[in-house]
């Protein structure tokens, strides 16, 4: 059977993403995940005052800049042995949660469900309904998601001044206290948002939704009332399952979560671990067991990446990032290959929920494995949970407004040392590893959630998670493989932080000259 190579570019992901796929008899037999951008942040940070990273790293990612800021401030506080006051921890995480809610809404209703309007589905029974809800700038859910995602980030602006790209978290706390005025404004934004979310995305209230705990609970709920079936999540589910997305996109069984979303209590004991809203760990989908996280077990490989080579893997605290463009070699990407205890892992809301042992997601995973629908579903499930946590957090802040928000006497000169900040960002496990010498940044390594998911092959030749989730897939139309779009977008890819170059011959006339 003749082999065919296709090169696929994907839009509606953050950043540029391309795949080189080998097809045999309409089936993918090899996959290379290829981003197309190198930006050099780690080099830019070297030699600067460590505090400058609070301005530079949010610019790694426009959709999760608050998570990048939090990872930086945690790493700097780790180095300085600084424990921020409880109110600062609450404000930071309240803002992180608002950013994640924004992301989940935009990712679902701007990026993911738009695929249901693909011309290929014109003959499907759901097509008109999909267009009336999800068509960009015309569909009702698309427009409502635009408006409401705009409102929820106002909450970050209340505390941080603006979204995206503020630097309001600094070693020792946050730059502004939670005043009565801000607390009421934030509560108002959150309550209005939650009402919309309940009415339009869920079709029921948060409590009913979060009490669904089993496979049957969920599917009974879905058919119980017209409001449930007609809600955003109801339509997303019925269309996804009509397309078989619950049977596509199985990848690695190892699920990584950094937990995080620290509670004030956890921070008091230890700046990095402890009692969190989410557990940190690695869930093994084969055994169903979760092990606690050990950040020492993280390594990064570069055998198939455009970086100066080293054998095997290096822990990020020892990592080096020196670009080395070699167009005619086995290397195919600027992205490194991170591994956890030598496992290929996936990360994101599905992994977070499984590590946490969230009942409904665990039940659905046990019934059908990991798949494109469940990944996306886990994202919206998380949104509901976060809205509850935000409400609880604001109530605590409201009980004592203007509580101490920052330590006094913290200098912008940081002592020498090494530290790290691990955060659960919208897309999963985000880590920053920093080394400071003579008051300057000597080493700065970032391992983004998408670096885990979009990983190339490692030194042992094992494919990354997305590559694994595509190999074996049957593709209807190699010139327009919409299935791949569903699978990859279910991961909420963010390639703006990573880097790649493509080299296969071009199947299309792209532009002349």
């Amino acid at each position: 059977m003749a082999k065919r190579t296709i090169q696929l570019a994907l839009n509606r992901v953050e950043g540029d993403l391309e795949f080189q796929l080998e097809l045999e008899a309409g089936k993918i037999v090899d996959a290379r995940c290829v981003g197309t951008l190198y930006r050099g942040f780690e080099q830019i940070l070297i030699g600067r005052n460590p505090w400058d990273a609070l301005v530079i790293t949010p610019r790694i990612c426009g959709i999760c800049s608050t998570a990048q800021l939090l990872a930086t401030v945690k790493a700097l506080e780790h180095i300085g042995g600084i424990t921020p006051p409880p109110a600062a921890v609450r404000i930071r995480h309240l803002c992180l949660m608002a950013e994640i809610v924004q992301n989940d809404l935009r990712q679902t209703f701007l990026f993911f469900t738009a695929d249901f309007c693909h011309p290929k589905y014109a003959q499907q029974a759901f097509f008109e309904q999909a267009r009336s809800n999800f068509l960009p700038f015309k569909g009702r859910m698309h427009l409502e998601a635009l408006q409401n995602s705009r409102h929820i980030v106002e909450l970050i602006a209340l505390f941080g001044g603006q979204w995206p790209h503020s630097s309001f978290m600094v070693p020792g706390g946050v730059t502004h206290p939670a005043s009565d005025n801000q607390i009421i404004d934030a509560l108002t934004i959150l309550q209005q948002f939650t009402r919309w979310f309940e009415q339009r995305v869920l079709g029921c209230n948060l409590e009913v939704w979060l009490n669904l705990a089993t496979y049957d609970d969920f599917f009974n709920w879905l058919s119980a009332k017209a409001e449930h079936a007609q809600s955003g999540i109801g339509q997303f589910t019925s269309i996804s399952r009509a397309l078989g997305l619950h049977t596509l996109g199985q990848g690695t069984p190892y699920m990584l979560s950094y937990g995080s979303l620290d509670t004030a209590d956890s921070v008091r004991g230890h700046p990095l671990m402890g009692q969190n809203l989410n557990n940190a760990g690695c869930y093994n989908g084969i055994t169903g067991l979760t092990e606690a996280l050990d950040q020492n077990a993280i390594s990064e490989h570069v055998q198939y990446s455009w970086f100066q080579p080293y054998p095997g893997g290096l822990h990020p605290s020892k990592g080096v990032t020196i670009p080395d463009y070699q167009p005619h070699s086995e290397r195919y990407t600027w992205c490194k290959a991170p591994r956890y205890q030598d496992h290929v892992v996936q990360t994101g809301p599905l992994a977070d929920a499984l590590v946490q042992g969230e009942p409904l997601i665990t039940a659905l995973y046990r019934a059908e494995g990991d798949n494109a629908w469940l990944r996306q579903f886990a994202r919206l499930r998380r949104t509901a949970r976060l809205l509850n946590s935000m409400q609880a957090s604001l109530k605590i802040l409201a009980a004592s407004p203007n509580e101490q928000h920052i330590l006094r006497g913290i200098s912008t000169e940081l002592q020498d040392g090494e530290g790290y900040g691990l955060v659960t960002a919208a897309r999963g496990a985000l880590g920053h590893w920093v080394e400071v010498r003579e008051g300057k940044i000597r080493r700065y390594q970032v391992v983004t959630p998408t670096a885990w998911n979009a990983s190339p092959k490692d030194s042992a030749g094992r494919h990354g998670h997305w590559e694994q989730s595509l190999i074996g897939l049957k593709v209807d139309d190699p010139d327009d493989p919409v299935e791949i779009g569903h699978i990859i977008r279910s991961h909420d890819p963010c390639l703006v932080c990573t880097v790649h170059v493509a080299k296969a011959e071009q199947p299309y006339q792209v532009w002349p000259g």
Partner: protein
Amino acid sequence: MATLVWLQTGSCSGDTMSMLCADSPSVEELTTGYGLEILWHPSLSHVPTQTFDHLLDAILATRQTLDILCIEGSIMTGPHGSGMYDTYRGRPKMRLIQQLVAQAKFVVAMGTCAAFGGVHAAPPNPTDCVGLQFDKLAPHGLLPLSWRSSGGLPVINVAGCPAHPNSMTKTLAMLLSGMQLELDSLNRPTMFFKAMVHQGCTRNEYHEYHIEETEFGGKGCMFYNLGCQGPITLSKCNTELWNNRSSKTRAGVPCFGCTSPDFPLDAGLFNTEKIGSIPLNLPLGVERSNYIAYKSLAHEAAPDRLIHKEMDV
């Protein structure tokens, strides 16, 4: 109807995310009320990328008109001038942009990266990136400074990191309405860059009476010690608030001068460089000896309510 293509080069998507926060006008209002037809936006278009490829071919063969080309991100020219740090389908994006700008009636740099190089151009500029018509302060980027689009304008620099949401959508709305856009010497639309960030800052009374903070988290002014560039930077951040709510300086975060060609500065961003006890960079256009005299008098006149930081910001 007017057509728009939006391309991302070396970017974080932050300008797109910021623009989705615009409300006066919103992006959806541009499409419904101002007749904007978005032929392509990498985050928002629902058509597959093959459609984009055909669209590019049609634009370059002049079968499809392109009224507005928006570029978000630094233009990566490395390694070694190849542009291969940022590619589309194996080809450098900088070449694609050179071809597309020739077809566009107007070209808009959305954000400081596309305008001046931005954060990626900070030392050591690992990707050899530039802006479209500027390389930081130097008047040449991917294109020479003398370049004009077929609509008669240079690249319109809606600077900011990210650009202010409503500045982006208002610029597009003006182009769509056929209104004249006046540009400043850095080719930024004057209407968004004719006020200092300092103007409208809620810490202004503290600044006025020279009550300066030495640590973060307080209510006073951040200009003297904490690196704030609000009195040096042109932008509407405090006169048209971010996300309808606030601004960095109101929240106690210094202005980092992100609308300026030299953003981010090389020196410590949270410290003010000084000559003696006076900032090296004074408020725009101010004479040093006069400023020193004014500040010492101002401090003498400060009321207790400010000295004791009783006033909220």
